[in-house]
């Protein structure tokens, strides 16, 4: 490359084309190998990401196939009867497969849970986002994280051995039995407080401080500023938090399996026992039913119903979160 010969030249100038030395150098940047190993590794990585899609497909298939089979037995209900029937008795001699009692049970426990989790969760979120000093936050945020990390079976134990007999019966003198949707729902509510609190706090912390300053500069006090400015500005994030809390409450299994009861019936009052969709799945799954029987397939029909309900809730939540991310 040191010798400049007559054939050296530039594409820009009128000179002759590149010399042999230059051609050798030019060749150094062309592909040396196919990097087979790299391509293989890249394919594996891509496959890992694509696997998540196959998991979803797998979920749908593993629920749908037995669910279809469920509707094809001799004594199967029609889809309409399944969705609108009010008697759920899969193991009885005169079996009946109306899923409404299970949905009612789920609605009760979820509703009671929200009555607890929304006010307490939002209160905690407002305090942490707007009032708490740095030191207080440093102590209280971990408390919420610990609460979020407690296994649900421990909450179930708590509902069955403390909330129902001691708190509700002895202290509050409410006439509940061992099992009730009330006890299960209350503890379910405690379980989803951290979900609602931490996501709502994120949403409120994301509100620009200029909005607060503007309100305070107009003479509004802190409470008004929080309730009239910050809270409305964060509303889509807060809604998303509540929706995600609902999704968790609907899908939670261990608390309701332990504390709500095992009788599938149209629950009319909170002190009654009842069975939720997840409670039924847990009970039947641990029983003796074998694949290929209608009882086993009923599990998957209920599972599919549960999946579709939570899917709808999740899609709403994802949409809401996206909207509040876009805003700021």
């Amino acid at each position, binding site marked *: 490359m040191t010798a400049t010969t007559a054939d050296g030249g530039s594409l*820009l100038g009128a000179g002759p084309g590149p010399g042999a030395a230059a051609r050798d150098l030019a060749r150094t940047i*062309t*592909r040396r190998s196919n990097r087979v190993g790299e391509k293989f590794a890249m394919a594996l990585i891509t496959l890992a990401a694509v696997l998540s899609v196959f998991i979803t497909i797998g979920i749908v298939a593993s629920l749908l196939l037995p669910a279809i089979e469920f509707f094809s037995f001799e004594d199967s209900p029609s889809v309409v009867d399944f969705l609108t029937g009010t008697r759920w008795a899969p193991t009885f001699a005169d079996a009946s497969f109306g899923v409404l009692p299970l949905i009612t049970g789920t609605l009760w426990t979820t509703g009671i849970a929200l009555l607890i989790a929304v006010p307490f969760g939002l209160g905690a979120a407002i305090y942490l986002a707007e009032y708490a000093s740095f030191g207080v936050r440093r102590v209280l945020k971990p408390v919420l994280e610990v609460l979020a990390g407690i296994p649900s079976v421990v909450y179930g134990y708590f509902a069955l051995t403390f909330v129902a007999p001691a708190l509700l019966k002895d202290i509050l003198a409410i006439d509940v039995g061992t099992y009730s949707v009330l006890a299960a729902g209350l503890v379910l509510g405690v379980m989803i407080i951290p979900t609602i609190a931490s996501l709502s706090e994120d949403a409120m912390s994301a509100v620009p401080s200029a909005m607060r300053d503007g309100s305070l500069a107009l003479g509004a006090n802190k409470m008004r500023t929080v309730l009239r400015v910050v809270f409305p500005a964060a509303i889509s994030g807060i809604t998303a938090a509540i929706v995600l809390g609902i999704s968790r409450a609907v899908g939670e299994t261990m608390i309701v399996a332990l504390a709500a009861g095992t009788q599938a019936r149209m629950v009319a009052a909170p002190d009654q026992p009842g069975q939720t969709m997840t409670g039924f799945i847990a009970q039947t799954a641990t029983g003796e039913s074998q694949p290929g029987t209608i009882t086993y397939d009923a599990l998957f029909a209920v599972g599919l119903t549960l999946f579709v309900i939570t899917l709808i809730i999740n899609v709403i939540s994802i949409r809401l979160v996206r909207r509040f991310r876009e805003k700021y």
Partner: protein
Amino acid sequence: MTEGDPSTMSTGEPTPDAPGELIKPVEVPAARKLSATAPPVIECVNVDIYYGAFRAVSGVNLAYGNHEITAMIGPSGCGKSTVLRSLNRMNDLIQGARVEGVIAYHGKNVYDKDVDAIELRRRVGMVFQKPNPFPKSIYDNIAYGPRVTGMKVESMNDLVEQALRGAALWDEVKDKLKESAYSLSGGQQQRLCIARTIAVKPEIILMDEPCSALDPIATGKIEDLMHQLRDDYTIIIVTHNMQQAARVSDRTAFFTAEATGGNGARTGRLVEFAPTEKIFSSPAQQETADYVAGRFG
């Protein structure tokens, strides 16, 4: 390419070094004899660079000479860094970036399908604006390039020493090669990045405002280093500091940006490319004269 005499073109001709006077009017060191017809190491022919639909640079024709230091100067947004990053295809990493025209490395278009951007970057190294050592030891920072490029190295220790000496850093770090690169000062980190680059034995070193994060003393050291490196490498430097361009470079390319389209989008354009001495003393274009004088007076 209008000046000089082909017969004097040689590698590593010693140059009178400008002393690192820092705050002083632009003073161009006595020019090296530059070759007019020597084949360029790398050149741009009618290069347009787009980000998506936005044209960042248009119509650039530039030839970078062997063992020369070429400076690219101009106001911010004029596309000088964009051109620099297209030379070793670092632009590939930006989504939507697209190059039209030819960028030829020894006559081979680097955007040809059969060109491997990775091999290209081994030949065309790059030093960035902010020193970016890896979170590893000084030694491992140097050894990283040879290791990943699969260079056949007889003694890694020797190579590390050679690279650090090449970047005028050896004496300062020889006793702490195993320490984290983050323990070095900013200027030392930048020289480490240069050492890291020369350890893979590239032909060309691209420098993207390499001194903008450094203090004047560290800047002076890097500029001295560039003069030494010219013996073995071709250097292309983007700088916003005209004195620096005048001090270190053999040729200077002046870019500017002008509004194209109604939405305030500005497209960069090469105004003038000439030996540094000429750019700073008797530029052919009025725009160049204004910029060189205006920024300075």
